[in-house]
């Protein structure tokens, strides 16, 4: 290499490094702080692909921070409740209670605690009516509601800033002082990693050697696809959409429309009484059922679909038979097969996964 080229080479390098710095400057101060380790969701082969969230990129440290926060009672106003108080891992992050009253006000809630898994695919809204567009915004609901965690967002920042380990972790993940918005982001990162796809059904469908389903379970699988699949569709066993499944005849305008379902969000009359389809995965663990937990077991749920559907204008078309009558014909043998299959959707590897459990 001759001298002329060496000089050119050097200035090109300088140009290069200068550009890198000027690009990065807006996002990260010049000080030399270690960057978080980028992470990706591990999606088993039978689940649909999922896009990264560009506004809240996953990092190993961000996920871990979210996990610590999820189990930290500092997040509540009385410092007694964490997210995990109502979202228990052993029952797929549900709470086994129709309408819990363990919130700060001790008043019963008006809706049943939803499960938390496969949320990375939940792109059409969170809450039973989709009133929140993403996990980040969703967390503000339970955090601030006086009947749930009743936290003051200023106090939350103060309390977390008093913990040196949090100061260090937030700085590493978000490269700034602790803010309530970054609490939301960290919680969302952890929740996106809660992927449940390790049930006996999953092992069977992924052709893992030795994985089998009984003939009754296979019959149940076919029945679920045929009779439940219009809403509980695909490998996620939900369409993440909203339906009126005929559990009520009227939808009173009380409590800011709490009984009106999706209508209170869209104000479209066609959405009256529609609530989000929950997944059938882990359904054996997540009783009671429906948005208000009114059915205590799956027999009640299946009996409802068979013979208990109540007419209202927005009842889902899939719940009508060809002759115009409401209900899904299900024989006793079919009911038994469906329940057998649903048991095969229980994911013990998920409910016992140490990566999702209380780090303390």
């Amino acid at each position, binding site marked *: 290499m001759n001298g002329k080229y060496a000089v050119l080479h050097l200035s090109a390098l300088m140009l290069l490094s200068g550009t890198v710095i000027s690009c990065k400057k*807006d996002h990260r101060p010049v000080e030399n702080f270690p960057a978080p380790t980028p992470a990706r969701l591990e999606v088993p082969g039978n689940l649909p692909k999922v896009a990264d969230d560009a506004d809240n990129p996953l990092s190993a440290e961000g996920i871990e921070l979210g996990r610590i926060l999820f189990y930290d009672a500092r997040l509540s106003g009385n410092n007694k409740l964490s997210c995990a108080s109502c979202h228990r891992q052993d029952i797929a992050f549900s709470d086994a209670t129709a309408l819990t009253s363990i919130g700060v006000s001790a008043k019963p809630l008006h809706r049943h605690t939803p499960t938390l898994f496969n949320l990375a695919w939940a792109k059409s809204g969170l809450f039973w009516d989709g009133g929140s567009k993403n996990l980040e915004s969703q967390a503000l*609901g339970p955090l601030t509601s006086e009947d749930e965690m009743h936290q003051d967002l200023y106090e939350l920042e103060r309390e977390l800033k008093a913990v040196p380990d949090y100061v260090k972790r937030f700085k590493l993940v978000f490269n700034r002082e602790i803010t309530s918005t970054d609490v939301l982001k960290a919680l969302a990162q952890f929740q996106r990693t809660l992927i449940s796809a390790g049930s006996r059904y999953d092992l069977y469908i992924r052709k893992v050697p030795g994985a089998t389903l009984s003939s009754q379970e296979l019959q149940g699988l076919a029945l679920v696809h045929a009779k439940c699949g219009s809403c509980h569709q695909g490998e996620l066993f939900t369409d993440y959409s909203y339906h009126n499944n005929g559990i009520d005849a009227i939808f009173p305008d009380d409590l800011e429309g709490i009984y009106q379902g999706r209508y209170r969000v869209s104000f479209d009359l066609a959405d009256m009484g529609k609530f989000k389809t929950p997944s059938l995965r882990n359904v054996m663990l997540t009783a009671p059922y429906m948005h208000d937990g009114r059915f205590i077991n799956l027999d009640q749920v299946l009996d409802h679909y068979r013979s208990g559907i109540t007419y209202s204008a927005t009842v889902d078309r899939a719940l009508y038979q060809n002759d115009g009558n409401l209900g899904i014909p299900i024989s006793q043998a079919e009911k038994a097969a469906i329940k057998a299959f649903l048991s095969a959707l229980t994911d013990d590897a998920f409910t016992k996964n140490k990566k999702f459990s209380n780090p303390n």
Partner: protein
Amino acid sequence: MKKLLTIISLSAILFTSCSKDELVTVADGAGKTTLTFDATFNGSDFALNKDFALGTKTFNFTKFRYWVSNVTLVNAAGEEVKVPGSYYLLEETGAINLVGVNNDNAATIYPATKREDVVLKEIPAGDYKAIKFGVGVDQKYNDNMSLQSGELSQLNGMTNVSWMWLTSYIFTSATGTVKEGTASKTLKVETGLNANYKTVALNLPQSIKIGASKSANIVINVDLSKAFDGIDVMATPTVGASQAAVMSAVAANYGGKVFSVKSAN
């Protein structure tokens, strides 16, 4: 030599990866502009707890707040210069108890505030003939409360964060009372929802020069009375998401009638 070319082209790629906005704002000779949102009501200066007549009705306000976002200046050549991070909360309000945000702490109650001025910094030098801005918060930020830009925050009472509700920003809020004859109603007229995000485009009476040596001032007349044009406030004194049609009419008023340019120099 091949290596050298690789480095040069790599640096070219890195250059182009910097967004355009960033490059525009660091141009030499950039200046600042003060944008004054002068609140009025049907020709009178706006103030809280003061009676304003409008036709047969009398309004009296306790609060007037709204988000202004995505401010864009249009230069003489018709090019748009977007002000990065331009999310501002304009307001005149008494102290606000932020139930659900800071529930218990009296010390962090949102204080009484009057704010009409916004300073736009680092505007590239040039002649400008028009201004555009949004009333409310655009969809990206409205849908995701964890994203921060400008003054966006859920800590100031201009959001809906209550349980099982649409988690989003309140775009505009005017509260107080309205009287007609012997009838008196509590007034709470608010807008929100992505469909009600409006962009206001205003031509300046004459081009103004902005640059390092000349800071400019644009005064915008904000006539709150226009927000109620065509609205029967005695019949619907509360306008929120459940009054979808009325809310969209109020939002249209904010988009087309409330804001006008008073002066620019």
